[in-house]
């Protein structure tokens, strides 16, 4: 449905502008429409449930981390939407009941740093990361440290602190080869792109 709509939008532009590339436009419109639909559903439901502020924090952390370190992707739009919404909502609802002490936070931080050092940045066969790997790894470590630092430095804001910790952890876990295997996603190395 989304791609059919994106194709129709691309067709409309190409009919009125000969210089437009139908394939590129359909791809771009596909991204716009699917992202808009995802955010309308996620933010709309968050508004109804009264957790819009928490969901916005979760989206911010998720976006910053994923754009920097990459990670596994789902193989279909519907699976992507279900996993994305589940990750956002589970972090928001878990954050309101979890009470992590300093030692648990430190253990979580060490696990995340290890995942980042070993696996970041993690790409896909479709979008290989060839350049700036070290920069992405360092940025991933900096952002993770910042999120954990903020979480420790905002007393009385347990929910927000937990969202930062959980979302940073979810994105770091998505780098692990086991997550790639479960989601059926291949890295550029596994896909033979970089050989």
């Amino acid at each position, binding site marked *: 449905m989304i791609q059919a709509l994106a194709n129709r939008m691309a067709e409309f*532009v190409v009919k009125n502008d000969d210089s437009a590339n139908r394939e*590129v436009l359909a791809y*771009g419109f596909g991204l716009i429409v*699917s*992202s808009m639909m995802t955010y309308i559903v996620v933010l709309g439901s968050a508004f109804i449930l009264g957790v819009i502020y928490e969901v916005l924090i979760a989206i911010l952390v998720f976006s910053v981390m994923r754009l920097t370190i990459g990670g596994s992707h789902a193989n279909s739009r519907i699976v992507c939407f279900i996993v994305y919404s589940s990750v956002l909502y589970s972090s928001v609802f878990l954050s309101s009941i979890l009470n992590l002490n300093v030692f648990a936070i430190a253990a979580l931080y060490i696990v995340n740093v290890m995942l980042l050092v070993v696996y970041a940045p993690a790409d896909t066969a479709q*979008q290989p990361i060839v350049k700036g790997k070290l920069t992405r790894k360092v940025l991933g470590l900096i952002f993770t440290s910042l999120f954990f630092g903020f979480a420790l430095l905002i007393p009385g804001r347990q929910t927000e602190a937990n969202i930062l910790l959980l979302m940073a952890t979810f994105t770091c876990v998505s780098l692990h080869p086991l997550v790639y295997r479960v989601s059926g996603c291949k890295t550029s190395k596994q896909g033979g792109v970089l050989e």
Partner: protein
Amino acid sequence: MKKTIVSIMKKSGEKVAQVPANVRSWPTGWNQPEMPSALRKQMKETDKQ
């Protein structure tokens, strides 16, 4: 009016399509196997530079 709409649509569609090719990720993106050949070619050329 129609020209303006077409122009805005063209620009936004092209710009958004460039993002996964440049950033190599899309936060809400699934594993798109059908990335356009023009963008795949552009990615390879960028990587060679």
